[in-house]
Each structure stands twice: as C-alpha cells, then as structure tokens.
C-alpha cells in the first residue's frame, strides 16, 4: 500500500517536473526573460539559470519517474518547489503583475495565491518519495549494493 502511494507521488511529481521543463528547454531566451521579470536574479546568473533550471527539472522528473535516486530527486524537487514559492511570494509582496512561467514561457498563468496553493500540494507530494523506505516499482534496486 505504501509502495503504491510512493509510486503514485513519484509519477505525479516526476510527470509535472518533466512537463514543466519541456517548453523552457525549447525556448531558453524566453525563459531567461521570464526569470528576469521576477527581478530577483542578477544579470551574471540569468543565462546560467535559464539553462540549468529546466535541465534540473527534467533530470529530477526523470529520476522520480524511473525510480533512480528517488530520495535525492524528491529532496531536490521539494527544495525547488520551496524556491518557486519564495519567488512567487516575493512577486506578490512587490505587486508584480507578471506571468509565472511555470509551464510555458509564452504568457501563461499570472502569479497569484492559487499558485502558492498548487505548489503547497506539490510539496506535500514530494514527502512520501523522500521519507518512505519502500520505493515502489523502479530502477533503484539495480543501484543498491
């Protein structure tokens, strides 16, 4: 039962992260502009972030879906989600009327409290793969000593 819960959470979080990365991977310039709109990233870090973040999302998502390094991937997914929540909260506090850039780089959902709620659920979904002993079906067994 726990194995099924972990597997379900892994697939959900992993699928969301992979889906979120695709448009950003295809359009690095547009994603750099989305990051810039948050006005949090200094220019020297803008392009490296625009390249690294989507790849990181994709690798985390793939690791969770395939069941490789499940705990580490879930930990990073949680950290990234908290990071996104901080960025959204900061934009809300500063009254920034910007699109979130969560899933696509072309306009998309405006930052709002509903995004914090959504990310809160995503954060909760990261917990079972992070904490549980059982992994559910996955490739982790091939990496165990």
């Amino acid at each position, binding site marked *: 039962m726990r194995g099924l819960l972990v597997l379900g959470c892994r697939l959900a979080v992993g699928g969301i992260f992979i889906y979120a990365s695709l448009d950003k991977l295809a359009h690095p*310039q547009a994603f750099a502009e989305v990051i810039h*709109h948050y006005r949090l990233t200094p220019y020297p870090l803008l392009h490296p972030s625009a390249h*690294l973040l989507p*790849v*990181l999302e994709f690798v985390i998502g793939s690791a969770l879906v395939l069941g490789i390094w499940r705990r*580490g991937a879930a*930990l990073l997914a949680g*950290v990234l989600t908290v990071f996104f929540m901080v960025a959204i909260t900061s934009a809300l506090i500063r009254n920034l*009327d*910007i699109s979130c850039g969560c899933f696509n780089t072309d306009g998309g959902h405006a930052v709002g409290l509903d995004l914090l709620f959504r990310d809160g659920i995503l954060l909760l979904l990261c917990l079972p793969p992070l904490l549980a002993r059982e992994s559910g079906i996955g490739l982790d067994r091939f990496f165990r000593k």
Partner: protein
Amino acid sequence: MRLESTVRSALAEFKWSVSLREAGLVLLVAVAVTTVSWFLRDDGLPLAADPMGYELELAAPLTSTEKALALYDEGEYHFVDTRPVTNGDFQTIPGAFFIREASFDDDLLEYFDFMTTEDHFILFGDGELFPVSNIAARMKDRDYRNLLILKGGLDAWLMAGGEISRRNGGES
C-alpha cells in the same frame, strides 16, 4: 493517530546522508547535461546576459514621448505623476494627478470625483519604470484599465519640449 505514528517512524528511519548524496548525484548529472547541451545547442545563450537586451514586463504598455505629447494635445488622457513627494518647488505636467506609492489609497480617494475607471491615463515618474509599473498594477486592481506608462518619465517629456507647470511640495 496511525498517521502520526507512520510519520514518526518515517522520520526516525529517514537517512539524510543517503538523500543528500543522491541529491548531489542528481545535481551533478543536471550540471553536466546543462554544460554539454550549452555547447552543442545552436540557440544557446551567451554566458553573460546583456542588460540592454531585457525589457521588463510592465503592468501597462509603454508610450513614447512623441505619442504622449500628441495625446496631451488631444486632451483625451489624464496624466498621473507617480514620483515621491518632494519639499519645495518641483515641475510636473500641467493638470497631472498625484498618485504615489506611499499614499496610494488616500490619493485615489482624493481624486475619486475626477477619475473614472473608463478614463484614459498616462503614468509617469522620474524615468525608473519599476515604481510607475507598481502604481499601474495597483490601479489595475481598482479596475482602471486604460493605462499607459510614459517611457523616460518627466525628463523625456521635458527633453521633447512638453509643457510643464511648477508646483510646490506643500500643496495638496
């Protein structure tokens, strides 16, 4: 109760060292893939971003001074001075309303009888776009939809030969 004990046992069994090691491996793979793909991609961005190449996403469209001058002459638009209050004399666009970040609600209340949500407004500041955009966002929250931001602020207006009036900081 059962959930609590499940969470307790999960936390007791949780191994930070394993999670951190695995997170490090995932991060390492991501950095390696990013580095390789950056060199291989035709549309890869340069390492350092050029600040001139990035426009901000503003809460209202920008308008040029030329266009603003034409709209001023037509008299269809109200001008809104968003600059912070200063002591002593200052220049502004004749007939401009004063709506400032620090006193936004009071300022809006003061102009309640003179501003409708259907009116057209051009907001200007001292050339910095962030503060003007923030005021535009707050006005949009109050259903003012027809907003423009003057690019370059009052300095650009003066440079383009726009009319000005002199006001005193003590005036309301």
